[in-house]
């Protein structure tokens, strides 16, 4: 059963009197126990839609124009703020991109980990701090009892992200939304955090939505990949199937731009020409068409719907008028 089902979500942004539908019409679901990796570049709507779900999107300038987001049988977008607040940090945890700014610089780490426990688990400060010590151990921070009284500036970037993870999982959420949690970190630290998250996911049986622009990260952690561009799903499916046989030219471009062992050293990496579309001046048709060397005339006229791929892999979907494997053959 789907733990989270998003139907027809539409989000807009107002800026300087102009309005952009950054997410025109988004529908997808995440099964309980699944890890969904959402990939896309800046402006693809991947972070915005997650913030919108949790009521964290600044409004204005943002505005939710419609749709449903059913979590465990209840529509997040329709429920009163007070009920959503009970879910946030409780049954739904969230981790943000930049651990250097995501923690409050003037409060102790202990207090910041204790807050959601006090709020959602009705613990006393004393109990919450005891639990916080355990949580620090769980995310691989030793000497937790001492570190609880320290402040964020006394932690490195990777350590701060571990603290953020401890906060997000403190109430053992059913769903964890991770918005580029490794992007701001060194590559070696990225690997550690990735391993830690995968381990915690398995141990706490969390469903996870992992938002990133890094195909490599998705390959490492996700069951399902969902490639987004200009607020739309371009392709979606089991990670192995999508990596082995991408059906969207955008997915193909992202995969081609990854460095990997088969490529001769010193050779140039492929890049996708052009820039993401201006959401304030939408064009008809497939938003990726202007940058797509495989685009057909129809791609420029008419936006393709998301449809099942004829490769007998369950759940592999693509939004494209063209047949990529045939064009590549």
């Amino acid at each position, binding site marked *: 059963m789907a733990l989270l089902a998003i139907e027809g979500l539409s989000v807009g942004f107002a800026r300087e009197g102009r309005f952009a539908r950054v997410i025109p019409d988004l529908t997808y679901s995440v099964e309980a126990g699944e890890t969904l990796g959402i990939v896309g570049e800046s402006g693809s709507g991947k972070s915005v839609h997650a913030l919108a779900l*949790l009521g*964290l999107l600044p409004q204005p300038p943002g505005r939710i124009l419609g749709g449903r987001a059913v979590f465990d049988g209840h529509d997040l977008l329709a429920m009163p703020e007070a009920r959503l*607040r*009970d*879910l*946030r*940090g*409780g049954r739904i*945890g*969230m981790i*943000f991109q*930049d651990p250097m*700014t*995501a*923690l*409050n*610089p*003037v*409060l102790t780490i202990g207090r910041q980990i204790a*807050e*959601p426990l006090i*709020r*959602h688990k009705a613990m006393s400060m004393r109990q919450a701090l005891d639990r916080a010590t355990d949580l620090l151990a769980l995310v691989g921070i030793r000497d937790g009892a001492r570190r609880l009284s320290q*402040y964020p*500036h*006394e932690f490195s970037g990777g350590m701060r992200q571990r603290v*953020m993870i401890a*906060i997000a999982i403190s109430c053992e959420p059913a769903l964890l939304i991770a918005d580029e949690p490794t992007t701001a970190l060194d590559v070696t630290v990225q690997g550690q955090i990735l391993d830690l998250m995968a381990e915690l996911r398995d141990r706490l049986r969390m469903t996870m939505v992992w938002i990133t622009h890094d195909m490599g990260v998705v390959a490492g952690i996700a069951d399902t990949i969902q490639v987004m561009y200009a607020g739309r799903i371009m392709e979606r499916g089991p990670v192995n199937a999508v990596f082995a046989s991408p059906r969207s030219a955008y997915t193909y471009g992202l995969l081609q731009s990854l460095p990997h062992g088969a490529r001769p050293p010193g050779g140039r990496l492929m890049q996708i020409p052009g820039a993401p579309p201006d959401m304030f001046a939408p064009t008809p048709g497939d938003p990726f068409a202007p940058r797509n060397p495989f685009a057909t005339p129809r791609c420029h006229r008419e936006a393709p719907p998301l449809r099942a791929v004829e490769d007998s892999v369950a759940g592999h979907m693509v939004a494209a008028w063209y047949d990529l494997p045939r064009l590549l053959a």
Partner: protein
Amino acid sequence: MGRFLLSRLGDGIVAIWGVVTIVFVVSRLLGDPAILLLPVGATEEQLQALRAGLGLDRPIWEQYVTFLGGALRGDFGQSFQFMRPALSVVLERMPATMALAGSALLVGVVLGCVAGSMAALFRGTIVEGVVMLLALLGQATPVFWLGLLLILLFAVDLGLLPTGGYDGPMSLVLPALTLGTFTTASIARLLRSGMLDVMKDDHVRTARAKGLLPGTVFLWHIARNSLIPVVTMVGILAGELLGGSVVTETVFSWPGVGRLIVQAMEAKDFPVVQAGVMVIATIFVVINLFVDLLYGLLDPRIRARR
């Protein structure tokens, strides 16, 4: 932390010495107090005798050394006007000044924090517009004019409060309101802009993502982080107010330090001017030390750097 405090204390003492020295030099450039103190038509001999009596006939560096030695012992000499030790003339006025400064600060901090928070919480609404307009008016209105208006309304027309003087708590209300208007407006504007900055910070989003109640988010993650500029402002205001608010004290015939010093300058009563300025400089140094300590309490990053 101890070393930090010691070095700040050292800085403060140097600052006081500098201020006192400048006042000494400037007051000697203002003219001859002997001429002022004696009636018109006094003979040259009488003038000389007075100068000798006041020590004004000795070389200027000798006067300076004597002065500094005295200042160290709290002895600024006799007031020319009152014929009593200058420092005690100044200190006698301190309770009046402190009562006024304290109540104006209290008004300012309480109302300013409430108004600033309201403006930040209700940003983009009519509440913010009204609060900010009032704050702008409060900061821009000349204090003497506001004081006169309040006297006209509450003392002359309504007869509720005395027009001036230093006689019980009722006489404190109007001057405290007059000064409090400015402090309220300054604090409200600063707190609002500080809070609006903090509200955009990522850590506030984290706090909301934890599902914390709005009151908790506001107090612990917005207000708590917006306090440093306010503390700075309160420190500056406290220094200014404790140094005596000349205009307000004059409008309300309030017997405070500010008015005393201005009167002493007009009368070329050097000892009182010097004692007064020294007292004010000391107050500033003490308040700054206090503000520095508060910074450390409010922001662990500042504590760590020391």
